[in-house]
């Protein structure tokens, strides 16, 4: 049982008889009136136990966009129900109006929507709906909490998709579809066609020209059906926040751009999220849209507070792609963890694959390094300098072991990684 503001107002009205007829009798009578009215109201209220609730949720919503959680409430009682309901969304779901009123005539159903605007990637769960059914006088109500579980997947926003058109254009320039034909752009023989002015004379196929009247040139195209394995590190280092974004989220952005680009480029993409065990895996060879499969798999990823076990990564890569492939490791270049974990495991990857290590650089370190106004600022600059030097040393070691290193600030990492992919593809190194 719940009392409402109306009952409190009615109780306050009791001030009048108390003043006009001073004495305990008026108080007792008024209290009795309140009790009787509230009891009557509760007795006449429709039972909220017999409400039917069905929730419809979208499969997923991209972070930063809105979606609706639709509730259908059906009144199975023989009375009219004046209900207030509330969905118990967690605060990061950004429910705008989780508490709403609805009037349900007997036997009828009404549909209400709760507008959600999630503020964090991940999986949002809602377990219950609380229904409060008020009596005809509106003085008291009955309240119960009904289990109505629901799950909403908040997908990564994929902000870096704005880079996609320009990168795709670059990719097409490598391809035979574009008018620009550079010799060396790709290594696979594609076709023969008539010479047009501007073509590289070195690409003239003299044997074919001899068979025909016109001059014929060979065209190449970039290799296709290569394999790209993207390994996203979800270990403790991915929890570090750079410009108010965890490394993991920046890595997800970069992985999404690279995967979509590689798929359009005709390559096969395998995505692995790994720390000590496999957290997520997506293969482009599977049916369905790669992008939606990726974002769905990435949505629940959270940084795990454990150290990554890089020694098991080569086996994971082999199980995803037994052939030579481009292996992209999205991790961090913190000297300690890399020296202990990644460096010993890297030769196992570089002997079979082309390896790119991509990492987010903290622009704050550069700011700290340049500030030398006071003694403590100078010590901070020295510490930042130390961190940057360590990073540079680690990157050099990685390059010595045959890996490419992409080290960029959060906004730059996805396009830089895509550029690296295009460059490697153009050079025919895949």
């Amino acid at each position, binding site marked *: 049982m719940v009392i409402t503001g109306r009952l409190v107002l009615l109780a306050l009205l*009791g001030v009048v008889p108390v003043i006009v007829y001073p004495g305990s009798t008026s108080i007792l009578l008024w209290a009795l009136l309140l009790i009787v009215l509230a009891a009557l109201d509760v007795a006449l209220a429709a039972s909220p136990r017999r409400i039917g609730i069905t929730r419809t949720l979208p499969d997923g919503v991209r972070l930063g966009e809105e979606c609706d959680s639709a509730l259908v409430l059906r009144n199975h009682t023989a009375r009219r129900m004046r209900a207030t309901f*509330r969905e*118990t969304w967690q605060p990061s779901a950004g429910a705008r109006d989780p508490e709403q009123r609805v009037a349900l005539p007997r036997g009828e159903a009404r549909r209400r929507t709760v507008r959600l605007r999630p503020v964090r990637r991940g999986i949002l769960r809602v377990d219950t709906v609380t229904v409060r059914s008020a009596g005809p006088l509106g003085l008291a109500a009955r309240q119960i909490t009904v289990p109505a579980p629901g799950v909403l997947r908040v997908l990564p926003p994929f902000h870096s998709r704005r880079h996609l058109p320009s990168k795709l254009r670059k990719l097409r320039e490598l391809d035979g579809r574009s008018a620009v034909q550079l010799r060396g752009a790709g290594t696979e023989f594609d076709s023969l066609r008539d010479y047009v002015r501007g073509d590289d004379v070195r690409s003239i196929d003299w044997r074919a020209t001899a068979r025909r009247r016109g001059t014929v040139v060979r065209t190449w195209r970039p290799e296709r059906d290569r394999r790209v394995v993207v390994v996203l590190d979800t270990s403790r280092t991915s929890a570090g926040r750079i410009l108010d974004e965890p490394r993991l989220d920046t890595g997800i952005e970069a992985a999404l751009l690279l995967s979509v680009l590689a798929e359009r480029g005709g390559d096969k993409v395998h995505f692995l999220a790994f720390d000590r065990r496999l957290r997520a895996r997506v293969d482009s060879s599977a049916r369905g849209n790669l992008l939606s499969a990726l974002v769905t798999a990435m949505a629940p990823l959270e940084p795990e507070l454990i150290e990554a076990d890089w020694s098991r990564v080569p086996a994971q890569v082999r199980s995803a792609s037994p052939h030579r492939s481009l292996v992209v490791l999205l991790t961090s270049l913190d000297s300690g963890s890399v020296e202990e974990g990644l460096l010993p495991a890297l030769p196992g990857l570089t002997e079979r694959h082309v390896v790119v290590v991509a990492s987010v650089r903290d622009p704050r*370190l550069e700011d700290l390094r340049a500030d030398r106004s006071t003694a403590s600022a100078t010590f901070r600059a020295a510490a930042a300098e130390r961190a940057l030097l360590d990073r*540079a040393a680690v990157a050099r070691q990685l390059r010595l072991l045959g890996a490419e290193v992409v080290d960029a600030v959060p906004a730059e990492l996805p396009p830089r990684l895509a550029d690296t992919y295009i460059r490697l593809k153009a050079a025919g190194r895949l």
Partner: protein
Amino acid sequence: MVGAVVLALTVLITLLSGTGEEGAPLSPENPGPEGARGVAQVLADEGVDVERPGSFDEALALLDAGPATLFLNDARQYLSATQIATLTTAADRSVLAGPGARQLTALGEDIDLVGPLPFDPGGDTPPPEAACADPRASAAGTITATGSLYSGPVECFPSATGDPPGGLYVTGADGSVGVLGAPGVLANRSITAEGNAALALQLLGSSPALVWFEPTGADVASVGEGIDPLTLLPPWVDLLLAWLLVCAVLAMLWRGRRMGPLATEPLPVLVRAAETAEGRARLYQDARSVEHAAATLRSGTLTRLARSLRVDHSAPASEIIDAAARRSGYPREELERRLLHRPTTNRELVPWSQGLLDLEKEITPP
């Protein structure tokens, strides 16, 4: 705020001056320049019994006990006119030291406050003479010109110019009540001047006992009986309060009931990536490892210079400095001094590291 400060100061000053009875002006125990211990001691030596009552009731009892002169020094005007009238009635003779106009209203004499004696800037005016029929005043002759003028049936010691009217010592028609407008003449500082001492002894030494009464705040007469404010309230107030309490409990029940259970928010781990660098900086600073910090800053600068000068990054410092000297045109010695100097204190470290940044900017092409 200012009001509160002023109030606090006032209370403080009142308390300080109130507690220091010995230091009060015209106190018979005060040997200072403002005190009146001289007069009191001379009177005591002459056989006059100087009594100091602590309260109004005590003073009244002393006055009732026998023939006595009342000297009332009420500079703060604690007593009401009625209280003063009661005291003067009980006393054989009364001398009121500088009473306020309000306090004179119930005396039954036509005595009133005129105003302060005009200030005499030159100091060449002769001291006021008695110039009245009162034998005590006449015996004194002249007194020091100070205090306030009063008007009354017998006015002695008028101001030299006669304007404003009135006298510094005024008595009632029968001479039993005297108002001394110049109580300062009794002070130790001025008792020996003019005829002050004579006036004091004449006024205060005429009876075998002298009641020297200095009222305190405790003597302020209350205006009337206090009323219990609750009796002023209408009869239904208690019931109303009880009912409002019930309403408040209902309101708490109304607002206190939550709509369903709380939702839990799984909070993410929040680690700032630059935190390790900050922590290391604090370690450097706490350990005062200036040399270590300087070496780090130097190697950072050298690395960047090497990159911009196209020197191998593993080249020794001298090679990088050679290249920098060729590029910038600075003499090699100056570059060595700026780069390879080893600061030892924080104060040295800061300008040196700023110099490194400047050097980098000068040598690195924009």
